[in-house]
C-alpha cells in the first residue's frame, strides 16, 4: 500500500508545485510506514527528469508513455490514475492543486470512493484518525477536516510544502493503462499557450500591476522589473477586463490565486477581492501613490510614490544583484 503522487509536466519540465507534492507525498508515506510512487503521464518529458523525481522523495516513478496524454484530457487522466491507484494498492493519492488536478480528483473521489481534501496546507495529523488542514473562504480562514474513508485524496496548496533535493534518482517503470475512445470523447481542437514564460501559478516571485498604471502602453516598467527579478507578471481584475493584459494574469478572488515568496503590487488599491488571491504570499511589497491605499495594511514593505519613478530604480537595483 504505497502513496501515489500525480506529477504534472509543463514545457517539458516537472512543475514546481508537483515537486512539492512529491516531497509531501514522501513525508505522508513515511507517516504511513510506506513509500511514495510518482506517476507521470505523456511523452513530453525526458527520461532523466523522470528519474530525478527520486531526489525529491519518490521511491519509484511510473511513466505512462502515451502521447495522447500530452494534453490534460480529464476523463482519460481519471482512467489512468484510477487504474494506477488500484494496481499499486495505494490508499492515498497526492496531487498539487491546479485547474487540471481539481477536475481529475473530483471524478476520482467518486470512482475510488475516496475522501477528498483540496487546498491542503499542512501534513496530515494521524493521531486518532486522519485529519488535514485546508485553506477556505478564499484564503481568509483555515478548516480542519477528517478524511474517514479508507481511500483518500489530498490536493496540496501551492507553497504549502518545501521539497528538498536530497535523495538519489529513482527507478522508472512503464505503466500501461487501458484506455478507450470514450475517454477521449472531449476533443481538444486547439491550444493557445505561451511557452518559455514563467507560469504565474508556479512562480516564486510575482510582479503585478493595477489600474494605477493607466494603460497597457505603460506596462514596460512592470515587465522590466519582472525580468530583472526573474518573476512572473500578474494584474488586477480591471486590467484584464480592459484587455490591457491577458485574462490568465488576473489575480484574486475571481482569478488566479498565487502563493509566491514575493508579491509586488504596483498601482493596485488592495480591494478585498484582490487580496483574497494573494494573502498566502510569504512577503508582500506595495507601491502606491496613495498612502491610504488599503493594500498597505496587508503589506510587509511599502513605498508611497509614483510607480513610474520608483520602478526604474528597483529594476536597476535588482539588475545589480545578479
Amino acid at each position, binding site marked *: 500500500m504505497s502513496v501515489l503522487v500525480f506529477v504534472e509536466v509543463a514545457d517539458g519540465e516537472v512543475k514546481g508545485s508537483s515537486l512539492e507534492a512529491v516531497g509531501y507525498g514522501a513525508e505522508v508515506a513515511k507517516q504511513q510506514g510506506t513509500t511514495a510512487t510518482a506517476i507521470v503521464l505523456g511523452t513530453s518529458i525526458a527520461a532523466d527528469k523522470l528519474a530525478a523525481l527520486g531526489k525529491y522523495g519518490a521511491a519509484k516513478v511510473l511513466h505512462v508513455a502515451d502521447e495522447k496524454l500530452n494534453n490534460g484530457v480529464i476523463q482519460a487522466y481519471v482512467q489512468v490514475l484510477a487504474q494506477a491507484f488500484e494496481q499499486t494498492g495505494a490508499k492515498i493519492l497526492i496531487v498539487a492543486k491546479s485547474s487540471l488536478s481539481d477536475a481529475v480528483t473530483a471524478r476520482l473521489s467518486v470512482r475510488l470512493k475516496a475522501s477528498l481534501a*483540496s487546498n491542503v496546507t499542512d501534513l496530515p495529523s494521524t493521531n486518532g484518525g486522519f485529519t488535514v488542514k485546508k485553506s477556505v*473562504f478564499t484564503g481568509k*480562514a483555515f*478548516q480542519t477536516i477528517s478524511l474517514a474513508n479508507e481511500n483518500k485524496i489530498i490536493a496540496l496548496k501551492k507553497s504549502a510544502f518545501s521539497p528538498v533535493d536530497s535523495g538519489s534518482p529513482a527507478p522508472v517503470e512503464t505503466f500501461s493503462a487501458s484506455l478507450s475512445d470514450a475517454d477521449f470523447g472531449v476533443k481538444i481542437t486547439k491550444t493557445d499557450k505561451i511557452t518559455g514564460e514563467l507560469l504565474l501559478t508556479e512562480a516564486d*516571485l510575482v510582479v503585478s500591476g493595477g489600474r494605477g498604471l493607466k494603460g497597457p502602453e505603460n506596462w514596460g516598467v512592470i515587465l522590466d522589473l519582472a525580468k530583472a*527579478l526573474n518573476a512572473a507578471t500578474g494584474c488586477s481584475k480591471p486590467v484584464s477586463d480592459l484587455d490591457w493584459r491577458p485574462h490568465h494574469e488576473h489575480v484574486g478572488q475571481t482569478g488566479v490565486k498565487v502563493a509566491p515568496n514575493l508579491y509586488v503590487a504596483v498601482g493596485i488599491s488592495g480591494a478585498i477581492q484582490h487580496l483574497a488571491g494573494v494573502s498566502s504570499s510569504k512577503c508582500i511589497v506595495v507601491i502606491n501613490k496613495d498612502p491610504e491605499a488599503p493594500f498597505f495594511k496587508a503589506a510587509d514593505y511599502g*513605498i508611497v510614490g509614483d510607480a513610474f519613478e520608483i520602478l526604474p530604480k528597483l529594476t536597476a537595483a535588482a539588475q545589480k544583484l545578479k
Partner: protein
Amino acid sequence: MKILVCITHVPDTTSKINFVEGNSKLDTTNMQFIIGPYDDYALARGVELRDALGGTLTVLNVGTAETEPTLRKALAIGADDAIRIDAEPTDAFFVSEQIAEVAKKHNYDLILMGRESSDYNGGQVHGMVGEMLGIPSLSPVMKLDIEGSTAKMAREIEGGKEYLEANLPLVLGVQEPIAEWKIPNMKGIMTARKKPLEVIQPANPTQYTQPQQYELPAAKGACKMIAPEEAEKLIELLKTEAKVL
C-alpha cells in the same frame, strides 16, 4: 434545451470572516449573502443560451431555508423555476449526490456551475456530478457556444487557453468572461415571486469528509515603509531581511 444551473449562497466577497461556537461555525451576524461569483457567470450564460435556443432553465441550491432569497434572485435574473434541496451543504460529495439525484430525474442537456465556490473553494462539485452521471465534466470553461448537440468551449489552462468540442450532455464549471453578470430588473423581481420553487428532501446522505474546526490566519505584522527617494534599499531588504530574493 434543458439547462440546470447550480448556485451557492455565500458570504459577500467583502465580508470579514469570523467563527463562533468554539470555532465550529461561521459567524453570520450582519453578513450579506450573494450568489457565488462564479455561479453568477453560470447563471448569466444559462439565461443567454435559454433565450437564444429556447427551452427551460432551472436553478438549484443545496441549502437550508435561508438560501431562498438567493434562489429568488436567480429567478429574478431569468431562471424559470428553482429547486432547493433542504440540507446543510456540509461536504462536496454529499452536495454532488443530491444534485446528481435530481439530474437523473430530469435529463438536463447542460449543467452549469461555477468553477469553484467562494466558501469552500473546492472546485469539486462539477467533476463529482459528472462522474456520478457518467458524462464529461470540464472546468474552468471561459467560453461556451452550443451548435446543435455540440458544445464548443474554451477552457483556461495555465498560461493560456484550450479550445474544446464535446457532445451534450455535459457538466461545466465556468468563469469569466463567459458572460456579463446580469442584474435583475423590476419586472424580473415581480415575476420571480410567482415562479415555482420546489423544496425537496435530501436522498441517501453520505459524506466523504467530516468538518471539524476553523481557524483564522495569524495577524500580519506592521508594514515597513521605505522612503521613495531610497527605493533601491527595498531590493537589499528583500534579499537580506525578508530573504525572498
